[in-house]
């Protein structure tokens, strides 16, 4: 075992002071050390996207990053997506369009889509497909995920 390093992680606006081994992945620290288990681990090699979180507004695979690299940065996870009891439009749209079944990939898709829509509210339907093809879902066949995200993108455009 290697020596632990003290870092401060800012997750959904709250500071978490933790002592972690430098080799410890961000997703493990978010889940195990900070207790935010909404972020899931599906492959640990950056393919499935279940662990996607937003860091300084960018969607990031938290399994491909060490926690020490995220110190001091603005980390958002699915737990911080809703504003109190007021769900994020994507969360509502996923329920409305039946865009989840087992729900394991859902936090990753929500964080991916919310980061991208925030950055690029006018993203084209075609580019959106490219973005969504970076995460895996094994239950839904994707059609309803695409519908849900497109519906929210359309709402944002019309605002």
């Amino acid at each position, binding site marked *: 075992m290697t020596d632990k390093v003290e870092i401060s992680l800012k997750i959904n606006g709250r500071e978490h002071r933790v002592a972690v081994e430098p080799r410890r992945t961000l997703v493990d620290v978010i889940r195990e050390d900070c207790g935010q288990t909404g972020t899931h681990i599906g492959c640990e090699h950056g393919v*499935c996207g279940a662990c996607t979180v937003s860091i300084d507004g960018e969607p990031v695979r938290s399994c491909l990053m060490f926690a020490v690299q995220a110190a001091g940065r603005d980390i958002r996870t699915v*737990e911080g997506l809703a504003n109190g009891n007021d769900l994020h439009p994507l969360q509502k749209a996923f329920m409305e369009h039946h865009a989840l079944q087992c729900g394991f990939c859902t936090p990753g898709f929500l964080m991916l889509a919310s980061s991208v829509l925030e950055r690029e509210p006018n993203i084209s339907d075609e580019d959106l497909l490219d973005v969504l093809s970076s995460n895996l*879902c094994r239950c839904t066949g994707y059609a309803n995920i695409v519908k849900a995200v497109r519906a929210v993108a359309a709402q944002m455009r019309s605002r």
Partner: protein
Amino acid sequence: MATEKTTWIGRSVPRLEDPPLVTGRGRFAADINFPGQLHMRVVRSNHAHAKILSIDIAAARAMPGVYAAWTAADIPEVSPIDFREGRIEKLEPYRQPVLAKGRVRYVGEPVAVIFAEDAYAAEDAAEAVTVDVEELPVLLGADEPPGEFEPGRTTEVAVLVQGYGDVDAVFRTASKVVALDLVVGRHSGVPLETRGAIARYDASRDMLELHGAAKVPHRNRESLARMFGRSLASVHLFEWHVGGGFGIRGEIYPEDILVCVAAMRFNRPVKWIEDRQEHLVAANHSRQQRHKVRAAVDAEGRLLALDDTFFHDQGAYVRTHATRVPMMTCGILPGPYRVPAYRATGHVRLTNKTPAATYRSPGRFETTFVRERLMDAIAHELGIDRIELRRRNAVRKEDMPYALPLVVLGDEVEYDSGDYVGLLDKLLAHVGWDKLQADAKRRRDAGEAVGVGLSMFVEKSGLGPTDGTRVTVDTTGAVELVTGGASLGQGFETVMAQICADSLGVDYQRVRVVHGRTDRIEHGIGAHASRATVMTGSATQVAALKVREKALDVAAELMQAPVDKLDIIDGRVVRTDRPSGPSIGLGEIAAGLWPTRKTVGGREPGLSAEGWFHSEHQTYPYGVHIAVVKVDRETGGVTVERYIVGYDIGRAINPMLVEGQIVGGFAQGLGGAILEEFVYDERGQPLSVTFADYLLPTVRETPPVEVVLYEDYRSTRNPLGIKGAGEAGVTGVGGAIASAIDDAIGMPGAVTRLPVTPQRLKALLANGGRRPAT
């Protein structure tokens, strides 16, 4: 107050499951932690077949944070993993030991196990274990001659035969015989959540708990109690959220046994979470079969006999399912067609690969590919239109119920209801079949490789024999429905709540559905074989109707009204003849039935009832898949442009969820048809061990699916007329896409093997449609 009764069955209401899942408050296996838990890491074989000379765990044991390390020698009392159905003497020698003894038989087989204070420490220690072996010859093909499993036993564990009629006589005299050699590739469910098992033992109550259970918690409790020599009451399983099942999750694997044994021995909770690489070599594989099939037909293409010899690649051991998949293969191959004489011979053989078992639509994905390839080949060879050929051979609606002397999941096959040709014709009209074909032809004439294909199938669902539930209304009017079912993401809670709400007369959101907990109900058969809605749903209806009857009985007394003038609307008993008159809430009735209340009278206390539903036979939904594909002749890539599924479900409880099941199933079928395959090199080393080499479909490969649901023929086997929905999306995909690819490249019969990878398709194109040497 509502005066109209709200109907819940048949409505696409939102799911009750969703709120915690979209807010990150779900609880999956990896999210479960107990104070003082140890983390387990499995050391796996790097060799496909070898004699174990020694295993050195001393260095690992001495590492910081390591609590214990075991090899097979440390757990002599633990038996190999039992079959779910109990003892099957002939197959017992082929069961998987929990840790390898003497030999390893596939890459990924557990040989040792580490317990440590931290998951990272456990993984470090696992790498310090050294295994010294002497390599043995590997056997990788079930279609190769059997080898030796152990002295005196070959790798052919069973030869299964099902059939009827004098097949040989028919073939001797038939004017035409069409024969094919077809291969279905090795792939599997690969849910996005890997497996997990967390055991704890409470010595104060002598209670063993296993968390992370799925699919069949009650059946697994029976197996674990038997294996550990414990009473059922001292073993409980808990299903939390489950990140997809698809047949593979929720079976008992070596890791489940190991965490339980360790928790009991160490008196500390033990947690194991699988990583993805482990998952791809350790969890059940499926599907791999080679079929040598032939049909005897008359001049008009009518089937006279079907004879199939197939080789089922079982992998290294026979796991909990025993021979369920090959047995199902034998029983369901004839599908929707009339086959006067039939014989299927299944050679179940072990290979030095990950053990295989069920994956969503087991036996049906494989046989639908085989049967529909055969129907296309017959049509081509006799010059008959492929639709017309299917019409001529389909079981007719006047033949229903249609019994065959075949067995599927221990059940005699009897198709309950349906009109196969009727559905085919309706769907063809719906999609504009002639235009679809004409458009494809026009594009082919212009140089594109575009084709249309279809497959027809009979599904099976609603595996019995029985299910029980308990419905209780509490004094607040809230309803609890306790089931022996399981939820793997399919929307079980919502569907059960809808049936319960509809039968009882409450809002479905008032119904809390309990599943996957052996401490809440004694019996359960779980969620598999598309059984939950049919069996658990029917039992729910029975229980809810009993509660309704009891509530009305009490209300009649309290309201001094005749029972036949009462109804339950939105949780309140009202008089149908005086809708604006007084009413009484179900909560008040429950209070009136509190054990100490006089109003109980001579009744059993509590507004509660158990309901049981028994079924002699499964129910058989059916459908047709249609695919339009485009082939890139340069790359060998296949793009599915359009996909249509027509399916008669009998009765859809929640059409949105049924559609979700079918669309999601299609994506998995698509994976098995063109992308997903567990590949091995000649030494038995698995080459598909990451998501970079085992390719799940992404949104880019998965087209939208048009689902055309029919409710024309209700099941005759349950009062609600339900047939299952879980697997129909997968079943026909291999067959339909193969047929469409043939059409696209203008080479009838070209596709003989799934998945149709770009390499294989390019080889086919280069060979002018002849099967390349493999």
